[in-house]
């Protein structure tokens, strides 16, 4: 245990995801040794992020203003919405530059163990967005795990009566990989989701 303030800092850092006690200690001592101006900048950035950043009132993505950059972009396709669990999934999909539609961030996945039900996710907001009939396709891009699948199934059932096209991202083989190294589940899924080779 260290002197009060130092230990406080270590404890606080240790609460961050992916930071264990050893790393927390290392970061704390790095900060102690660092230039005061650098530390002030970090502290400022931390405060600012909490003060300024909010969630887009349309899609739920992190935003600096009322609406996020993507929702404000008039060039994006209004007919397709891609549903993801977290803001970081938006970033991942944006990197592909493949998708030009809009997003909807749920804020998690259905998980009764963690006490998360549909009402805790931004599903009502999604339904409101779909209500005007402009959207023709809903792409469900929740994680390919049990909770993500459950959420996808839930959404698909919910929007079915609205008559729009609902798709799910394919799961399968990684590009550039070797077939022999794929695990059985992934390979099995890839078989399920095989498609016609059009030549």
């Amino acid at each position: 245990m260290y002197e009060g303030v130092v230990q406080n800092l270590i404890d606080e850092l240790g609460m961050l995801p992916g930071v264990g006690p050893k790393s927390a200690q290392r970061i704390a001592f790095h900060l102690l040794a660092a230039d005061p101006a650098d530390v002030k900048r970090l502290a400022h950035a931390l405060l600012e992020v909490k003060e300024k950043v909010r969630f887009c009132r349309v899609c739920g993505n992190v935003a600096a203003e009322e609406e996020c950059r993507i929702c404000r972009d008039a060039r994006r396709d209004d007919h397709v919405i891609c549903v993801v669990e977290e803001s970081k999934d938006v970033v991942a999909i944006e990197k592909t530059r493949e998708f030009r539609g809009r997003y909807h961030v749920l804020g998690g996945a259905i998980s009764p163990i963690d006490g998360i039900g549909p009402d805790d996710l931004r599903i009502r907001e999604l339904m409101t967005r779909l209500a005007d009939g402009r959207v023709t396709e809903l792409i469900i891009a929740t994680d390919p795990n049990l909770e993500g699948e459950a959420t996808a199934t839930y959404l698909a059932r919910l929007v079915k009566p609205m008559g729009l096209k609902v798709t799910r991202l394919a799961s399968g083989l990684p590009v550039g990989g070797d077939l022999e190294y794929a695990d059985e589940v992934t390979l099995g899924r890839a078989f399920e989701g095989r498609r016609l080779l059009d030549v």
Partner: protein
Amino acid sequence: MHVAHLSLADFRSYESVELDLEPGVTAFVGPNGQGKTNLVEALGYVATLSSHRVAGDAPLVRHGATRAIIRAAVVKDDRRALVELEINPGRANRARLNRSPVPRPRDVLGLLRTVLFAPEDLALVKGDPSERRRFLDDLLVARAPRFAGVRADYDRVLKQRGALLRTAALARRGRGGPRRAESEAAFAAAGAGDVLSTLEVWDAQLARYGAELLGARLELVEALRPLAAEAYAALAPGSGAATLSYRSTLSTGGDTESDVSAGGGVSTGLSTESRSLGITPAVTDRDALAERLRARLLEVRQAELERGVTLVGPHRDELFLGLGDLPARGYASHGESWSFALALRLAAYELLRAEGTDPVLILDDVFAELDTQRRRRLAEIVAPAEQVLITAAVPEDVPAELSGARFDVSEGSVTRVA
């Protein structure tokens, strides 16, 4: 296949031990409490990634050490593979194959196949249904390692669904019910209307993974039935026929007594009544099973919502063991129970063997429990196996038919004597 080398570091009582092993019979002899079982337990762990003696990993690590390492060189069809497991209680275990790390320990499942006979096997006959379900599921994983994933997914669905049902049960009893503290957060989170719509989603997931598990179990029981009957008849001739049947919560009625047999053949020992009720071997189509599971879930929904537990699914099924016209559990004598447990293991051995490779047979302290006749018969059955590892307290416990290499085990040291 056989194990050519076993090396342990900080595993159970062993700080370090290196053993060269050969095909054929090897006996580990020494007084109780000297570490014989620890050796074979380590091999069982390499094969199944779990111990046959304890549920958690913590007892496997030598007192005072932080991790245990098991290394086993496995020879199959003249090819040698080195499997290395690092057991880290409380953290993720790690595995290496031929000195290269694999992404998940699960990836080394199937490299070593063992069939382990141990005093604990008596629970297969006398114990709770969960023991017999575990027997089936472990064997499924041994045959197709993919099932380790199916099993894990099914367990997770059960947990999620259970949490949801408990929330619903709480909501019905109103706040301030006796189990209020248990899932306050869950209660607050899910409105009552939510629960039903979300439940349907989890029903679908349960049906999907449940059907896969159930279908595989039904096929497995079908394959085991004749082998177990044959093995039992060989071990204990003239004491009634051993029968297996799978009783599923899927069939209507719900209580296990009136349930269905997987095969429905006359040899099940169950009457025609059970055959008319339900599942025949042909009906192991996964989609059909999933459909039936969902339908059953709807039937029991009211009861589930009241009790807050999933009442239908492979986790509540039973592998029924019959001896003559009676259930083995509760009716069989001690000796008969032992023979039945051995017959189940032998059936598993035959099944794995039929796929082309002899699994390694491990007989942990079983001969002491058997009378001379059964001892001799068991010895005759296992003698031709590619590799048999035996533990015994005294050399006399090892039947003459099973002569081979011998190690003395005392106070944590293992010495070859013959």
